């Protein structure tokens, strides 16, 4: 009797402590538990540890980004600092202060640069996810945390990647963490995109040498059959901070 009361007291105390330690995370975010994974281009022996974090369940939408632009007019396409975004910034919008008709507001916010995406997340009290965080969350299917080596899952991703077209958020699938659209809707910015594809031999020009990441890159990859992952890394290798691409959007993350 006393043992079970003690047990209950401890459980409640632990629960309360856990709740107090957790950062306030809105319902639009999912908590991703930590774990280990092997990046496609491993940076040394062994897998990488990803600490628990929160991730937006959906990509940031045009409607949400419009609210940002209205509150921070310095990020309108007719006022944005040129250092922060190239000429294609929000090119798909009908006007500087309009993101389109109601149905278009549910499209992912694309045509945004890394600087712009970073600023939006900061405005929301969040940040961009790191590449490791993003890739870790993207291993998941609807039912498994790590489906990256499931040929059927990889085949589904291939089909999604090759059939990209403008669609509202929530159009692809919801993975086991409750996160939508990591695959097949838009490419997504990560915080440390310019930490990728740095040659360990800094005598070279590896970051600019696309050939290194084509044929040779496959040989260096930890899973040569994971074409979707290879596409993502190849895509990120060509990005710069001001880059805007019609199919490139983002979502935000938060520390836990």
């Amino acid at each position, binding site marked *: 009797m006393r043992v079970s009361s003690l047990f209950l007291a401890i459980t409640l105390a632990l629960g309360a402590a856990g709740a107090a330690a957790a950062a306030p995370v809105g319902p639009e975010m999912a908590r991703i538990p930590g774990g280990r994974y092997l990046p496609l281009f491993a*940076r*040394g022996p062994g897998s990488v540890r990803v600490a628990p974090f929160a991730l937006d369940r959906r990509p940031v939408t045009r409607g949400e980004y419009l609210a940002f632009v209205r509150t921070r007019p310095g990020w309108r396409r007719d006022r944005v*600092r*040129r*250092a*922060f975004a*190239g*000429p*294609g*910034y929000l*090119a798909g919008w009908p006007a500087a202060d309009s993101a389109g008709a109601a149905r278009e507001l549910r499209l992912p916010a694309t045509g945004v640069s*890394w*600087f712009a995406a970073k600023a939006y997340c900061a405005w929301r009290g969040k940040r961009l996810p790191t590449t490791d965080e993003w890739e870790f969350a993207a291993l998941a299917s609807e039912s498994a945390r790590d489906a990256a080596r499931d040929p059927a899952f990889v*085949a589904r991703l*291939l*089909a999604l*990647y*090759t059939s990209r077209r403008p669609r509202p958020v929530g159009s692809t699938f919801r993975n086991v963490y409750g996160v939508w659209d990591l695959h097949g809707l838009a490419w997504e910015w990560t*915080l*440390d*995109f*310019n*930490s*990728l*594809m*740095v*040659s*360990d031999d*800094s*005598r*070279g*020009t*590896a*970051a*600019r040498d*696309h*050939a290194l*990441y*084509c*044929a040779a890159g496959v040989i260096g990859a930890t899973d040569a059959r994971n*074409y979707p992952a*290879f*596409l993502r890394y*190849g*895509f990120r290798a*060509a*990005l*710069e*901070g*001001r*880059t*805007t*691409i019609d199919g490139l959007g983002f979502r935000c993350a938060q520390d836990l």
Partner: protein
Amino acid sequence: MGTHLRRASSALLLALAAACGRSPAPQTVPGVLPARAEASDFSVYELDAPWRDQDGRARTLASLAGRVQVVAMVYTHCTHTCPLIVDDLKRMERALPPADRARAGFVLVSLDPSRDTPERLKEWVANARLDRARWTMLTGGEDGVRELAALLGIRYRREAGEELSHSNAYLVLDRGGRIVYRHDGWAGDLDEPLARIHDAAEASAAE
């Protein structure tokens, strides 16, 4: 299922080849500017993060305006490539005609702000025998460093341990901070950067 996979694979191989053969169609052009290109349509000095120089003074990038600047990103604990980058830039400094040298500066920005304090930079400048009238070393915050690197197209990563991997490049900025030249890898032949520095110095004088 087999046919679908084959079709998907070939579509992917095509996409892959396209992705490998050229950049995805961004509106900005990464990499080396074509010969005699216009300056970039933006100024690096639009970044307003705070920095400190080797004398501990608070600086903004905008405080670099007025001279043609040759910029590289290094760190003082870098024992191999960074000293060689600096040697290349010193070689450029010596090769400049006096009239151009008087209108040029050299900027080294630390990729390692947690260890590269102003005191450490000052020591490094002295050891490398850099002419303080012309050379500026800057240290800032991690976010400012990442933003500047992203704007200059410089990639870097902190490895396990204390090493940083980083791409090896330098850029020439005109008097207003616009990129007029970028070079990846070792400086090699200096004719082109010297010409760009000269043109940028002349352009300022003509304004």
